[in-house]
């Protein structure tokens, strides 16, 4: 089966998020870049499906020229082709423009399955996969943590409020996945060498503005918590019990 996986370059955030001087982006001068954990799992799921069933994995991203780095990482993990929908530097495409750009690739490629992460870890828009599915006129399931493909259908499930929700979708379809669906592999050395040399298809894109427009970003005020130290080791237990009592969690 032929699978398209959509990924996004995002900063690797470590101890804290700091903002650029204009407060319109994350300060990335000291950070590396990656794709969202959900998307790492989408790539892994696609590679596993193709290892089992045959076919191809194409990975696509919308972003500036530097996003080539993330495409090559995906190629090193087993993707067979890569498409860069290239924007000018520092353009933040909204979810509708992103879905529209991805649609051009997804529609032309006649993929059996399009996989995305449930949401990008930076903007967290929770809608690109669904908008893409509507443009393609295909069924979609989101937030998926278990996926199986048999014959011409996909069975996908997720947990919701303690219950398991299972969706059956005919192929071709769109599925957005979450971390936990698998444990992504590390790239192999031959994979990395192959990825270095692989050709990447580049298509220039000028995303349209969204009706939702960011003005500024800010770091939320940390709650002013001054931790009360209850003690050291097991000797703190009596104090701990009385706090639990005060909080009303002891029945």
């Amino acid at each position: 089966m032929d699978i398209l996986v959509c990924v996004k370059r995002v900063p690797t955030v470590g101890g804290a998020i700091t903002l650029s001087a204009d407060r319109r982006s994350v300060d990335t001068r000291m950070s590396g870049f990656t794709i969202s954990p959900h998307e790492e799992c989408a790539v892994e799921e696609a590679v596993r499906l193709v290892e089992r069933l045959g076919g191809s994995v194409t990975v696509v991203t919308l972003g500036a020229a530097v996003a080539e780095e993330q495409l090559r990482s995906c190629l090193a993990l087993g993707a067979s082709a890569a498409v860069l929908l290239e924007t000018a530097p520092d353009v933040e495409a909204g979810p509708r423009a992103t879905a529209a750009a991805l649609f051009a690739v997804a529609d032309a490629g006649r993929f059996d399955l399009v996989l995305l992460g449930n949401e990008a870890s930076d903007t967290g828009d929770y809608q690109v996969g669904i908008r893409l599915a509507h443009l393609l006129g295909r069924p979609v399931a989101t937030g998926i943590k278990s996926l199986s493909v048999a014959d011409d259908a996909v069975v996908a499930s997720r947990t919701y409020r303690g219950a398991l929700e299972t969706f059956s979708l005919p192929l071709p379809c769109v599925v957005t996945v979450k971390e936990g669906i698998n444990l992504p592999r590390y790239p192999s050395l031959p994979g990395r060498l192959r990825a270095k040399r692989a050709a990447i298809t580049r298509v220039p894109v000028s995303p349209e503005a969204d009706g939702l427009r960011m003005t500024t970003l800010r770091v939320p005020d940390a709650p002013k918590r001054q931790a009360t130290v209850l003690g050291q080791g097991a000797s703190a237990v009596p104090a701990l019990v009385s706090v639990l009592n005060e909080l009303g969690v002891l029945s």
Partner: protein
Amino acid sequence: MTVFCLVELDGGAVADASLRALTLARGLAAGAVLAAVVFGEPPAPGDQAVAELAGYGVTDVFTVSGIDGYAPQAWARSLAGLLGPGERPGPPGGHAVLAPGTDRGNEVLAHLGAITGLPMAANCTAAVDNGGPLEITRQRWAGLLLEEAVLDAPVALLTVATDAVAAVPVATGTAAGEPTAIARHEVPASVADGDLAVRAVETPAGAGGASLATARVVVGGGRGVGSAEAFAPLEELAELLGGVVGVSRVVTSEGWRPHTQQVGQTGTKITPELYLACGISGAIQHIAGCSGAKNIIAINTDPAAPMMTRADYAVVGNLHEVIPALVEALRARPGARSG
């Protein structure tokens, strides 16, 4: 402005995330129509959920029947139907449709956005209507960053963060707090071709028990727990406190616990009365998942760990000594659960 809010029920009651969404929706409705939309059977007179909705300022309840179970695209199509036939209804000030920022709420509103061609803002923490485009605040990075934005659309589609907006009923004793008769509307589902192709079949997951997202007490375990086996005392403590176990990302990547128990940006966001974090350093991706906890107690050997400095109460020490001693002390209490 008419504000519609998708409401999910949990048992017979309104789900906590929906109460939070209604609180934000009420501010936006500003005394105009605040309509709760519920999918399923019409509520019986004297229904508990309807009384609860009234307490949150809901003026109208729309019950959409005719869809068997959860079908996200069909739910969205029916919401689109409520906005009026054909082109935009366009009353002055426009409409808004809100939903809780749950898996289902985000999914249904994204479908609604795709069906109507409208923009959608996920996981909002505030929305202000000054007559022009809505001024909204929404979460990025699972709440580690906040985005100030304008939403320029004839109908505003918003989901409400599940961990950042408190659920506040209308103050009683005020004119607005007097119980008013809720207008009930029963509407048939509007469904187009293919809308029912994707539908959830629900089965109980695992051994049941309280769900992490809605648990009142969460006992968290991190790298400091050390192994899969070493989670037994945490399980025991969680049971004694009527709670569940949650874990940090390293625990699931080590394979000690299943991913369904992960608290954090890529796991579950929790909003318990108490989060008892054991051997968790507090990486920001984890903080994103637990900052909605009302109270945090941290147990860690390192007093300078971020989790310790963000906690309300801290115990400096080895969890392998503290937890068994705590379990023993709780068991020794008169009337303790035999668990």
